[in-house]
């Protein structure tokens, strides 16, 4: 028995190192691009490593970047497990942040002990609403969620632009010619505690705790069981008496809520105000999309999403550092990130093959070993819910 589990742990270790190997392979291709740009790849990647892990501050920056990825990723775990493809994380983050910020700039006389939790909850709720709309549209009007979430992202951006240059504009800026589209700054008491002197804030810890809670939700509660059941096989779930439509809505509501929380947390932990440059990613940092990547790197498992977010966050932070040190256009960084995503997602095939081999071996040994519950043997989610 102990021998078995040792082997199993070794297998898991191999599985876990696959994304890292794939990342290295992508960086190897990136090295060719760097050479073409007449940049020394060793120097470049050294800078990347130092930017991501080279100092206390670098590690903190990596974790700051990883926090919204993890939160959005948790939501993605829920929605993809529930069979819905939520690519509206950007919009959900924005709406969560707008509502969360509204709390902080309205209730200025209140105590931080009240305002921060309330704001984060309101952000959570804002994301839930913005995710819930596509949920309802999908469940009851057969509007595909990819379409609606793409559209809702664009709507959220314009809503943000409208509010930040109009009703919610920083009163100080309203008086100036520059009229920067931003809200007032949160007072010091409303900021999440930080690990001084870095920007690492309490939100990182909250996100990790939530990852555990999402794990419990998905695998230890009946709600979670039903969400996953609907995702695995909506028809069977229907016959089993599950109200499929409700769980489709629930999956999107929860998924949006975590993105909304990520948005509010960016305001209360990092930026202390909302600012728009006219685009979604100017505020979100693209976390609404990158969170999907992180979740898939983490094999749609909430706990697995933690290291996956850190890996992807490190990559983003390190690549920016690399840009600064070797002075390549940031466009190269974008292309490189794309390569890493493609390589990592492609490397999944080896994990699945090994898993299948293990399973076959187990069956052959006559132990009838079933995959344990939190092992992902089936292709996750992604089935259309023919409501």
């Amino acid at each position, binding site marked *: 028995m102990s021998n078995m589990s040792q082997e199993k742990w070794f297998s898991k270790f191999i599985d876990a190192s696959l994304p890292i190997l794939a990342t290295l392979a992508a960086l190897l291709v990136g090295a*060719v691009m760097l050479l073409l740009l007449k940049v020394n790849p060793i120097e470049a990647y050294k800078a990347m490593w130092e930017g991501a892990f080279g100092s206390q501050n670098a590690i903190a920056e990596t974790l*700051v970047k990883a926090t919204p990825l993890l939160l959005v990723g948790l939501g993605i775990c829920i929605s993809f497990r529930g069979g819905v493809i939520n690519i509206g994380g950007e919009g959900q983050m924005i709406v969560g942040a707008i509502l969360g910020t509204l709390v902080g700039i309205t209730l200025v006389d209140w105590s931080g002990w009240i305002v921060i939790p309330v704001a984060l909850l309101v952000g959570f709720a804002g994301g839930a609403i913005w995710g819930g709309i596509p949920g309802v549209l999908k469940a009851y009007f057969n509007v595909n969620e990819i379409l609606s979430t793409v559209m809702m992202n664009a709507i959220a951006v314009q809503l943000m632009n409208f509010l930040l240059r109009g009703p919610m504009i920083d009163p100080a800026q309203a008086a100036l010619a*520059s009229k920067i589209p931003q809200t007032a700054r949160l007072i010091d008491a409303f900021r999440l505690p930080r690990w001084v002197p870095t920007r690492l804030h309490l939100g990182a810890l909250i996100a990790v705790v939530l990852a555990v809670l999402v794990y419990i939700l998905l695998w230890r509660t009946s709600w979670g069981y039903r969400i996953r059941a609907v995702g695995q096989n909506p028809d069977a779930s229907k016959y089993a008496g599950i109200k499929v439509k409700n769980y489709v809505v629930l999956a999107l509501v929860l998924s949006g809520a975590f993105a909304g929380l990520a948005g509010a947390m960016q305001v209360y932990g990092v930026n202390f105000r909302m600012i728009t440059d006219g685009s979604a990613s100017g505020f*979100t940092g693209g976390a609404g999309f990158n969170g999907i990547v992180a979740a898939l790197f983490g094999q749609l498992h909430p706990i697995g999403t933690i290291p996956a977010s850190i890996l992807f966050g490190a990559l983003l932070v390190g690549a920016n550092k690399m840009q600064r040190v070797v002075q390549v256009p940031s466009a190269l960084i974008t292309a490189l990130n794309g390569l890493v995503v493609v390589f990592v997602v492609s490397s999944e095939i080896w994990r699945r093959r090994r898993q299948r081999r293990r399973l076959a071996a187990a069956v052959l040994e006559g132990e009838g070993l079933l995959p344990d519950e939190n092992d992902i043997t089936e292709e996750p989610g992604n089935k259309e819910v023919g409501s």
Partner: protein
Amino acid sequence: MKKFRLLVTGLLLFAVLLGACQSQPAAPSVDEAAPEPAMEEKTGPFRVAVVMPSAINDLAFSQSMYDALLTIQDEMGGEEAMEIVYSDGMFVVDDAAAAIRDYAAEGFNLVIAHGSQYGSSLQEIAPDFPETSFAWGTTVDTFGIDNIFAYEAASDQGGYVNGVLAASLSKTGVLGVVGPIETGDAKLYVDGFVAGAKATDPTIQVNVNYIGSFSDVALAAEAANTHIAAGADVLTGTAQMVVGAIGVAEESGALWFGTQSSQTELAPDIVVANQIYRWDVVLNEVIDLIGAGTMGGTSFMIDLANGGEVLEFNPDFDIPADVAALAEATIAEISGGAVAIGAPEFEDVFKVAVVMPSAINDLAFSQSMYDALVVIQDWMGGEGAMEFVYSDGMFVVDDAAAAIRDYAAEGYDLVIAHGSQYGSSLQEIAPDFPTTSFAWGTTVDTFGIGNIFAYEAASQEGGYVNGVIAASLSESGVLGVVGPIETGDAKLYVDGFVAGAKATVPDIQVNVNYIGSFSDVALASEAANTHVAAGADGLTGTAQMVVGAIGVAEESGSMWFGTQASQTGLAPANVVANQVYHWDVVLKDVVQMIADGTYGGTSFVIDLANGGEVMDYNSDFDLPADVMSLAEATEQGIIDGSITIEFGE
């Protein structure tokens, strides 16, 4: 196997797509050492010897010293009182060293090594002759040896005045400069000239040609010919070989500005003014000090304030009264210290980092800053004096914050956060790095933090001028505007444009379209199409996505008015005018303040008055004379405050 296939596929894709990709290293020139000429004379008791690289009648550097010595001799009472001997044509440094040593051994009171290339010889020789005074220039360095005087000329000052005059008198808007080697006194003069010209007329084109020689008269003439062919109608030049260039100027009827000595007699019809070096100002002091027993250890500077540099106007050349007045005012300002010409010098390389939201070649906001930094680098003396790095595409606010903090931590002297969305990050970061300067825009808000500069553009001014022209030229009475989001710099420009148009033609219709994006080129294009369909025959727009709208202007034959950067190249037949941002105007002040020990706390505005905004009229667009003069009058009115821009809300 599959791993290999994946890699091979990936690599192939790259090879195909990146095959032609090349890097573009920026490599500004490195300065080299350069020689200078000299001159001399003789007298009785007080004996002076001078060693100089060219002839005493070179009408340039050597002659300026020769003339000075003659003046001194005269003042002191003629040959009886002062003896002058000289060695001219000492361009071989070894020979000069021998001459210097020989004069010292012969017991001359003062030996002048008139050429910066003689310094190291002097450093050897002077300690051996403690009873002899040595003087050399142009430099400030006495090597700490107490029988060496040093002298130099603030030649940029006269250069600046010449530049002001040249820009005022030029009709073609093109000036030509012929210099020897890009260093020392020559570079100082040329840089001053360029600065003066640009300060007077920011759109002026100053073509500079360093021919690499102090003696090649033929090449200097050819360089001048080249300038004339390029449209220059005013020329200047420094060092002895420029006599060739003066002939060319005379032949082609171009104006000439001299320096070092008076060059009026060479071409009395076309020489407007000369900056003349009066080394006698320095020599008088030197002689006084020697008389008082001080053999050296001091360095001197001739400039406009101390009369060591004099602007001599050619009485035969009829300078318009207003131009003469401008020149006098400029001289007074420089003498009074109100105009700082040269770039300040820092002990180490001045390091600048800039963080900006889009690419450096966006033909809009980010590019305007990148271009300015290139100007500043040149102004400060190239990569050896100033280096800058950038992070482009930083539209993610917290990535930008990380970059800003990182640059500050790495010891950059100035970190520029070029985007109004970066302000609150800066507010966090700046207090942690009190000896780093930060600059951000566009806004006026420094948050009251002592190491933050703020800058913004009065973009409504150029918008207003554009609006005036557009309304004057519009036949349909309808204009169209394409903007990104209705706020900030974009809104300011658009409001200015509308105000200018309405002020000119009150019933003009200005349709404004904000497309809600800085990047959606297709929608910008379609917005422009909509304007054209609604009858607009003049279009404008701001931010990087408008490149799509310019194409529509071209296709529909509408006029286009640009802002932020010059967009003329995109539609040469349709662009009427551009408001161009020159952030270098602000950056020069910022650098100067940092040099003076101020890290921030000030906010700057670029506008038409300070030359930070320049109306760039497309010379290929046939702007009717009356509209052109209206536009110029409008610019003038905004500058002198007689036009105030009112936004109708």
